[in-house]
Structures are given as structure tokens and as C-alpha cells.
């Protein structure tokens, strides 16, 4: 039965009920006060209830009392199983489902869901592309042993790593493209064991401590292939060589190159793991610092001797580690990398002077968490 038919019957019944006087049963057949109350409170046994309902359907005065009592008692209603509705035929149910009252709510809800879904997708894409764009200038200026990184490619949503795992946010796609080239660079670095690297690092530390020159903060880049090769030999002579290398004054360009190499190496190491998120699981700050150190990364500089130092600036605590000053709130989330003096850095400290104060008071690399975002300032 369609909606129009229902309305017709509804109107007929309304009209039929107008001015209709019901014939009440004889006085002796009326329900007494006790029965009326028991019914209104829902305490009548099933068999008696049927009889009462039959009477109430035909007796307006008893019905009136029951209605009043039910409203006074605030009758507890219960949901019936939908077996009653199942009596309606299958096709009737289908047609009822697609009737206008059902579609009135279902269609807008469906449209709204689709719009929200598309909106979220677009927003996510925009956000990812902004993220890549922010980091692109740094990447594009990173020469890796003469091998230019591939041109930045707009990452597809599938290729973009989630924020938590996007620690090396410097263009995952770029890394994939230049993986072969980078691997060449990496393979130039001999697979040094932890012991040999530690030895080399130690040598460098000693040398750097002596000279104290040519090192720009903790962001000092990864060691060049040469020292690594020297470390492979594992002899004290090589340690001496490393010391000499460390003493050599580094130009600004060299410092930048080394930083770039280290970043690419780190990123490549993680990319090698491929989509295996378990292996790419974010490391804690301490783990990361230790990892960098074991690889002879930036930790291998003069500041190594000051590891574990803690300072408080602007109400935030920073621990000095191999990776520089690290905010104690930092939990390996994605980093926005900034260089002191750059336009972006100036823009940031204009908005957030607190970050500028921190960067001024803490020399070298500073990883600071500010309003939920992590910045790496060097």
C-alpha cells in the first residue's frame, strides 16, 4: 500500500471517529478500579490482559481512566520484537523502504557522507603536498656525491607516509627515485661494524675536542666516506688520521654537504626497509640519538662529551644528545626542518618568538616541540 492509500484510510478513520458514540457494555462488565490500575501499571497477567484489552477497545469510559492512569504512572514501555512487522510481504517491505519517507533521510545522509569523504581526501592531499613543498627547497639543494636528487614528484596519497612514520619527510618519492644513486653513495661507505665506527667516532671526538674548530654545532653532518673507510682499517693510525681530518677547517659549503649526505643516508636506510612499517617504526629520541651515534653521525663531534646535559628554556626542558638539544616532549613525530637565518625561520620566529628565544639560547641543532609541532632548527 502506498502513501496515498494510507492517507486515504487515515482520513476515513478520522472522519469516521467524529461524533461517534460508542456503546459501552453494561455496568457490571466494566473493569473495576483495581483492574484498571493493574492494567495501567502493566501488571496484568497475559490471559487477563487480552480480556481487558477487548473491553477497553469498546468502552470509552474505562479507556479514558486507563489513559489517565497510564500517564500518571508514566508507564514503562518496551520495544516489541519486529515479528509483527514481518507479517508484511517482502515486496511490500522493499517498496516501503524505498518510499519517500525512507529516502527523505537516507539520500541526504548518503550525499553528506560522500561529500565529507571527498572533502577529507582533498584536504589530506593538500596537506601532504604542502608538507612536501615545504621541504623541497632543502632537498633540491642537496647534492649527494655529485649525484643530483631526482626532481621532486608530487606524491600520490598512497606513497605519502603517515605523519607518525614520516620522520624523514623529505620527499619519500624523491628518495625512491634516487634510491639507486643514493645506494651507490651508501655503498661507498663500507659496512663498518659498530665497534669500528665507535672507534672512529671516538677518535674524531678527541680531535674535535682538541681543536674545537670547524664544527658548527651538533648538526654537524655525517662523516665523509674517507673517515669511514679509515675506520674500516680499525688501526690506531687510522684514528690519528681521523683526528687530522676533524681538525681540518670546514667551509660552510662542506658543512652543508655533509649535513645533506647524512640526511640522505639516514633516509635511505629507512627507505630500504620498504613498506614494512614494523621495521620503520618510529624510534624514541634516545634510540634515534644512539642510532646516529653508532653510525658515526652528527653525534661524533665535540659536543659528545656534553651528552645528557639538560637545560630549561622558555619553560621547556631540553636534553643534549647526539642529535643536539632535544625537547623532552619530542616523541619522534615528523619534523619541520629550518635553518637559522632562513626566510622560513624568520617567518616562524616572527609568529612564535618563543622558538627564536630557544634557538638563540641553545646552540647547534635544536629539536623543539611547539604547539604540537616539532621543529628541527640548525
Amino acid at each position, binding site marked *: *500500500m502506498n502513501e*496515498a*492509500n*494510507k*492517507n*486515504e*484510510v487515515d*482520513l*476515513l*478513520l*478520522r*472522519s*469516521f*471517529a*467524529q*461524533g*461517534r458514540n*460508542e456503546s459501552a457494555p453494561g455496568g457490571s462488565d466494566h473493569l473495576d*478500579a*483495581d483492574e*484498571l*490500575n*493493574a492494567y*495501567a*501499571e*502493566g*501488571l496484568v*497477567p497475559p*490471559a*487477563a490482559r*487480552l*480480556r481487558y*484489552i*477487548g473491553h*477497553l*477497545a*469498546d468502552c*470509552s*469510559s474505562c*479507556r*479514558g*481512566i*486507563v*489513559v*489517565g*492512569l*497510564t*500517564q*500518571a*504512572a508514566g*508507564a514503562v*514501555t*518496551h*520495544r*516489541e520484537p*519486529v515479528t*509483527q*512487522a514481518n*507479517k*508484511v510481504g517482502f515486496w511490500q517491505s522493499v517498496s516501503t523502504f524505498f518510499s519517500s519517507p525512507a529516502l527523505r533521510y537516507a539520500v541526504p545522509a548518503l550525499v553528506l557522507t560522500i561529500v565529507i569523504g571527498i572533502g577529507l581526501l582533498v584536504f589530506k592531499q593538500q596537506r601532504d603536498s604542502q608538507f612536501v613543498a615545504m621541504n623541497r627547497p632543502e632537498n633540491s639543494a642537496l647534492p649527494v656525491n655529485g649525484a643530483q636528487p631526482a626532481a621532486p614528484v608530487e606524491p600520490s596519497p598512497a606513497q605519502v607516509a603517515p605523519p607518525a612514520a614520516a620522520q624523514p619527510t623529505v620527499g619519500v618519492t624523491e628518495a625512491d627515485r634516487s634510491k639507486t644513486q643514493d645506494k651507490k653513495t651508501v655503498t661507498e661507505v663500507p659496512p663498518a661494524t659498530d665497534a669500528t665506527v665507535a672507534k672512529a667516532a671516538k677518535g674524531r671526538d678527541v680531535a674535535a675536542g682538541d681543536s674545537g674548530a670547524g664544527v658548527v654545532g651538533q648538526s654537524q653532518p655525517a662523516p665523509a666516506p674517507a673517515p669511514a673507510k679509515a675506520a674500516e682499517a680499525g688501526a690506531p693510525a687510522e684514528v690519528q688520521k681521523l683526528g687530522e681530518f676533524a681538525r681540518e677547517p670546514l667551509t660552510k659549503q662542506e658543512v652543508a654537504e655533509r649535513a645533506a649526505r647524512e640526511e640522505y643516508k639516514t633516509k635511505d636506510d629507512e627507505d630500504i626497509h620498504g613498506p614494512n612499517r614494523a621495521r620503520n617504526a618510529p624510534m624514541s629520541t634516545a634510540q634515534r640519538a644512539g642510532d646516529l651515534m653508532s653510525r658515526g653521525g652528527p653525534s661524533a663531534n665535540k659536543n659528545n662529551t656534553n651528552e645528557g646535559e639538560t637545560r630549561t628554556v622558555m619553560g621547556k626542558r631540553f636534553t643534549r644528545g647526539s642529535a643536539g638539544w632535544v625537547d623532552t616532549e619530542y616523541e619522534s613525530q615528523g619534523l619541520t626542518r629550518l635553518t637559522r637565518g632562513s626566510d622560513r625561520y624568520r617567518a616562524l620566529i616572527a609568529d612564535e618568538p618563543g622558538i627564536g628565544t630557544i634557538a638563540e639560547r641553545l646552540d647547534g641543532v635544536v629539536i623543539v616541540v611547539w604547539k604540537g609541532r616539532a621543529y628541527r632548527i640548525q
Partner: protein
Amino acid sequence: MSQRTEPFANEFAEGARNLIARAADSYGVAQEVLIPRIAASVHKYILRDDPTASAGVITDFIAKLQADDLCLIVACEQGVQKAWTDLVERFSTTVRSAARSASSNEEGAEDLAQSIWAELHGLRVRADGRPAGKLAYYSGRGSLAGWLRAVVAQLAIDQHRKQSRLVQTEEDNDFDRIIQSGTEDNSWAGHHGAVSPEVEISTKLAGAQMQKALAKSISQLSAEDRLLVKLYYFDGLRLREAGAVLGVHEATASRRLTRVHSEIRQEVERSLIAQGWTKVETEKAFSEIAMNLETDLEPLLASESVSVNKEKEVAG
């Protein structure tokens, strides 16, 4: 008491003992006094409709009786003064509230509330010398407060009927005539303006046949569906209120009503076809009558509200 209750004597005795134990204050009511009261309740609510009920069902029924309320009422019946004092103290507010709901003015409500206590106590005397009040009809199945509300409502209706019979003013007669004329005008023949007498007669006849078929289809509904139709269409309750009377949720009541519409339509069509109508004619009649009713609904509802107001005035 039917013979069937005899086998349950143990259940009654046990139930009476438990009932006294459950009551916070039994007012010294003896077990022997309670047993016939419990037996009467069991017969009224169970054995009358289900003579084969098991002992378990009866025990369960007795266990759910309102121990405090039943002991209080039985004690009042026994003439325990403290019980009467407690009854009036605890339930005078309930009685006054119920009387106000049943009366249209404060004075009438106060009179009604006062007369309730007399009705409960009983003005006549039974064979055993005790007053024959309404207290004897409280079974303990529902709450005492609810029972008192029901007693007040019934008393209000009785008083209204007596008053209506005595006071039949000229205005009321006029009013009845207005209602009657309104009902007559509410013909399903519709308002067709200037039509030929033949058409008018045949239309009126069709409307009358439709009304008859509709009344028949309503009477053939199940008791519960009929009650729903009466509550919704005749008493003007909302679906939520009608559902509460039936003990179902509003959504269930709505589903039922939709099904009832379908059943009524089918039954009316069947009935009309049996009288010689064709399928097309019944469908046409449905749509035409509904169209006429739709346009006429406003004045009908207006006259209904007038009649309701008038009834309230009479009741006051």
C-alpha cells in the same frame, strides 16, 4: 471461590506468611485474614482466564503482590485506627491530585476528595457488621496510589453522569443540536454544489456503504489493534500515548497502525466488492471521499474542540 483454588491452599498460606514477613509494618494483620484476600486476587487475575494455571504461576503472582499496601488496606478494613491515620496521611495528597485532574474547578475537586474517604470506608454495613467500603476491592496487584487514582476517576465519572441526568439545560439541547447537525453535515457524500438529484443520491449511498464497510472492518480487527485505532482516532491520543496504554513503544504503535491501515483498506474493498462494486469503483471512492474529507477536516476539528470545551463546562 472455585474448586480449582482448593489445591492451592498451601500456596495461599505460604504466600500470606511471606507477605506479612515482607511488609515493613503489617499492622498486626493475621495470616488467616490475608488468605481469602490472596485467594480472591488469584482467582480474579489468573484462574478466571487460565483455570489450568500451575502452582508456580500462582506462587509467582502472590510473591509480586504489594505487601505494604495490602497489609495497610486490610488493616484499615479491620478497623485499625493507626492504619487509617497512615492511609490518610500518606495518600491524601495523591487523592487530592487525582481529584483535581478529574474536576474542572478547585471546589469540585475538594468535594470529590472528601467523598473518596467516605467511599473507601463505606457508608453501608455488611452482613458481618463491618462497613462495606471500596477497600475490599483492592487486590494488592497494583500500587495503592494508582488504585486510589482509579477510584477517584471512577467516582468522578459516576458523579458526572448523575449530574448530567439531573441538569439538562436548554443550552445543552441547543448544543446537542449543533453537534448533531455538524455530524450530519459530515457526510461522506462530499460537497458537490449543484448536482443532479440522481448523482447526489448515488453518492450518498456510496458514502453510507463505505461507512458501513469501514465500521465492519474495524470491528473485525484484533482487540489490540481495535484499541489502538480507538485510542488514536477516537480518543485523539498521540502515538506515544496510545503506545503507552498498550505497553509498546511509539515506533511499534506506528508500525501497527500502518499495518492496520492496510488491513482496513483490504477489508473495506472486499466488503464493497461483495456488494457489487468493481475494483475501480472502490479505488475511485476511496480517493474521492478522502479528497472531500481533506477539505472538510478543518471545520470538523473546530466543531470537535467546541464540543470538548462544552463537555468540560458541563462536567465542571
